[in-house]
């Protein structure tokens, strides 16, 4: 019974192996142009690597790796001020998602179960819908209260 899932497993294994291979082979993915200044090196390894890989000139400016904020110097911290509206939406989602997980087994046998469970399910669905209505009345859908 589980042999239907074997291609899925092979896809995962091939993809992960391929991505690891790609990321370790491609010099553009594995290492950057930013190097701290080492001065002139006459070691064989350094000479060979600079001959083999056609790279641009190395960058020694520390601003090269800073976060990009449209040319401004990045200041302050991130993640301190998050609008509370996102939180309300996520709560609504959690309430509804649990509801929907419970609906799937009922939907599979819908025709056989008949009319009474259908009405019961509609009542069951009405409860989280009431929560959405409440959030709407409280003004959380307007984003800025």
């Amino acid at each position, binding site marked *: 019974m589980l042999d239907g899932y074997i*291609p*899925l497993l092979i*896809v995962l294994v091939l*993809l992960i192996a391929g991505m690891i291979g790609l990321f370790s082979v491609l010099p553009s993915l594995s290492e950057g142009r930013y190097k701290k200044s080492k001065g002139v090196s006459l070691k064989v390894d350094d000479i060979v690597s600079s001959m083999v890989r056609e790279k641009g000139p190395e960058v020694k400016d520390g601003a090269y790796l800073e976060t990009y904020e449209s040319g401004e110097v990045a200041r302050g911290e991130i993640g301190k001020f998050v609008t509370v509206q996102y939180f309300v939406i996520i709560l609504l989602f959690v309430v509804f998602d649990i509801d929907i997980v419970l609906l799937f087994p009922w939907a599979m046998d*819908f025709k056989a179960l*008949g009319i009474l469970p259908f009405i019961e399910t509609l009542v069951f669905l009405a409860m989280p819908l009431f929560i959405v209505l409440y959030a709407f009345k409280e003004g959380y859908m307007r984003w800025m209260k």
Partner: protein
Amino acid sequence: MNILLRLALFFAGAGHYGSYFLAYIFETIFFMIFVAVVLIFTIYLFRKYMARLQLRYGPNRVGKFGSLQLIADALKLMGKESILPSGRDDFAFRVAPLIVFIGLFVGFAIIPYGSFYWIGSLTITHSNVSLLLIFGALAIMPIGEIVAGASSKNKYAVLGALRGVAKDISFEIPMMLSVIALVMMASARTANGLNLEDLTSVQFIPYGIPEVIGLFVFFIAMIARAAYSPFDLGESDSELVSGYSTEYSGMRFGMFYMGLFGSIFLGSMLVSVLYLGGYNGPFSSYAGFIYLLIKTLILVLVAFLVWLSIPRIRIDRFVNMGWKYLLPIAVINLIISGVLTLGLGI
């Protein structure tokens, strides 16, 4: 007969276990080549179609009709440096594009592709709960975007990731409700409505006809899921620089880009499987795969038309649209399909 048995017959010289081992490996490799071709073709189609709508020529220099332009772009992206910003969360930053990519491939692996010529069924994953599995795979991709936004330690990226979360969860509920309506309808004909293969094979009349509202809700939710222009809040490039992918460059950015186009194609394919009858059609035991591709292409063109003609909406209107309009419509659709199934026995 399906592609696995055909390949096992082809490799029959390798013994019982050896032939099946090789068959599984080659089946998967063919599938991955198909997905790669689909990704390249979708991006090429989008660029040509956008150019035609904007009275331009589009790519027409590399190869015949510019058909090799995307290969050249991929090579260019591979050659470009992928800058790793200094403030990053290293492992999460590196793994985020892979999450998007892996979710995409897993999603493609679950679709029932139908039959093609003498090969037989091209479906590679046979599961009894493939409907749930594919929505699980679709739910992996936004995680990659959120991880990307949170790990790059950039204000724009964090905002983009937050908006991406709001986008995904606002449209998840109407989408799942319309799918439940579909499973309810299928329960009259098949015992296992959670199997995409069964769900497709009972659609003598495509479910898009009795469930027009469900098709409407699901298609809008898929557009929102794929996150392009009316709903591209996660990477709104005129406010946030480029949203969650701001700090990404080179091939890592290319993976997000391919994930976007792949999810458009995957979403259209899912809509055509669930609502337009998938591989059903005249002589579907020979040309089912072709029917699926034709239906998907039409939906992809509709999706591109939506992308290119509607400007981005504001975040509050967007959340409103999910919770205030689509959710009640989806519940009404559930009631209608329940009444149709119990009353008329469709």
